[in-house]
């Protein structure tokens, strides 16, 4: 075990802090760093192993539909991320909050037509149109994950975060109180929206 927590260790810690208890997922070498962290984290949140990434995504959708909580699914880069898509579209069309966490090839190989490298930001641009981001340095992580979760809940939609495999293994470093840092916080409380008693705007009734 690394002496200091990695980005992957912190990812799981942050999911626990959001009360995420299950992640519907499938292994692959684009998320090996996260799988290793899972071993160190005594399987918390629980890694639920589907047979296929699309099924993992459906399980996250079903979980979210029946609990009202965010569903989380995870897959490796390339084929794993591609397999998630149909389940994520199911979430998008039925307005269900789901967060997909997917791997990507190492930063050093990106753009090199590398093994299992597909342009995930472009591929996910439609299905995760509400929020899709790649974490390229550790300081980004808490905010990107927090926004993915909050946006999924706020917009009742799937969101996605992409973490290159070498970033997963970097030592975690929190955003600091400095220029170009984006610290973040946990949780959110929603209002109960109700209409104005008098119609104050909008076109007149016909």
């Amino acid at each position, binding site marked *: 075990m690394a002496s200091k927590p990695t980005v992957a260790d912190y990812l799981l810690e942050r999911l626990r802090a959001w009360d995420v208890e299950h992640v519907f997922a499938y292994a692959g070498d684009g998320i090996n760093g996260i799988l290793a962290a899972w071993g160190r984290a005594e399987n918390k949140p629980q890694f639920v*192993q589907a047979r296929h990434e699309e*099924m993992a995504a459906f399980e996250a959708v079903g*979980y979210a*539909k*029946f609990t009202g*909580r965010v569903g989380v699914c995870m897959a490796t880069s390339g084929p794993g991320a591609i397999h998630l898509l149909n389940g994520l579209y199911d979430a998008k069309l039925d307005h269900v909050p789901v967060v997909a966490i997917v791997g990507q090839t190492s930063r050093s190989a990106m753009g090199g037509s590398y093994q299992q490298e597909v342009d995930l930001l472009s591929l996910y641009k439609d299905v995760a149109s509400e929020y899709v981001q790649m974490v390229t340095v550790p300081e980004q992580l808490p905010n990107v994950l927090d926004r993915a979760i909050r946006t999924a809940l706020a917009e009742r939609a799937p969101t996605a975060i992409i973490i290159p495999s070498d970033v997963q293994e970097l030592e975690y470093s929190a955003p600091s109180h400095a220029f170009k840092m984006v610290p973040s916080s946990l949780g959110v409380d929603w209002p109960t*929206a109700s209409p104005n008693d008098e119609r104050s705007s909008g076109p007149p009734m016909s």
Partner: protein
Amino acid sequence: MAILAGQGARGARHELEEVAELLGAGIAKPLLGKDVLSDELPYVTGSIGLLGTRPSYEMMMHCDTLLTVGSSFPYTQFLPEFGQARAVQIDIDGKFIGMRYPYEVNLVGDSAATLRALMPHLKRKEDRSWREAIEAGVAGWWQSMDAEAEVAADPVNPMLVFRELSARLPMDAIVTADSGSSANWYARQLRFRGQMRGSLSGNLATMGPGVPYGIGAKFGHPDRPVIVFAGDGAMQMNGLAELITVKHYWQEWADPRLVIAVLHNNDLNQVTWEMRAMEGSPKFTESQRLPDVSYEGFARSLGLHGIAVDDPGDLGKAWEQALAADRPTVLDVRTDPDVPPIPPHATFEQMKDAATAMLKGDPNRWGVIKEGVMTKAREVLPGQS
């Protein structure tokens, strides 16, 4: 007056009941809203649309007012004619409000809070004749559904699989259905009540979510019984593989009951019927016929409970066994592909297209004509069997 209550109305059960009571309205439920209100309420007309009920259809065709709450039900042809009704929509999301119908007022807000804000402005409808007509239609419809499920088939009428479960559903059950004819019978034959929950792939209508939704439900609510309806097509696409996930985890669930009911008819039945009704095309065997697989045998090979049913008389007992089992069960029912998922309002043109398809040499023609005529007769003559 008609109310359309979708999944966004889930937190507004009491408010909807109160508004419907005040205004003498009926309430139709799109597929994703099936668990929003009890089907035991006499003025709930049930599902709407191609998989809908006749009372929902009649209500929309004749109402003069429409209130849509938390729904983006996409099929405008099942809503009132333009100009027929004055309409108001309530939705939590301003990005999705105001479409599908020319609403006069679009209220963005929480469905319960918005209905509560409206209530002081509503006057009780003293003439209850509209409401009474809806209730009579609903009572007649459920009689028709019972009668349709009782139509003899070869070997098991798929509607009977749902009807035999409906009265036995535990009050805290969670039900999922795959896309296809499973969704049809889920929409029209199951009567939800109590705290029952249910869902399916409402808008993407993808094949394959039935079993994994059920697994997601078990992780979310390991103390509640879960029932999945899936066709043999969906089982072959991915449901069988996902039974291995069930085998892997079921012993972690406080209540191990997960029942997967398979409509085993060796046919991609919904599309076979759509081809007949919409295209006037006979069944194309190469695309529609499925290879035969023993779903209960596969389940037993995984150490799950497997029950095969090919006699309608055994269905009730099979459900009771599955709902009392100490582990997940696959209920493998040999259903008749010739029972037509006829829409509630099936037009003469659609019936004619289906008939034309038959005359063009559909391999199932004799069974289809027999089942179709007998089933339709039950809708025309409620209470007859």
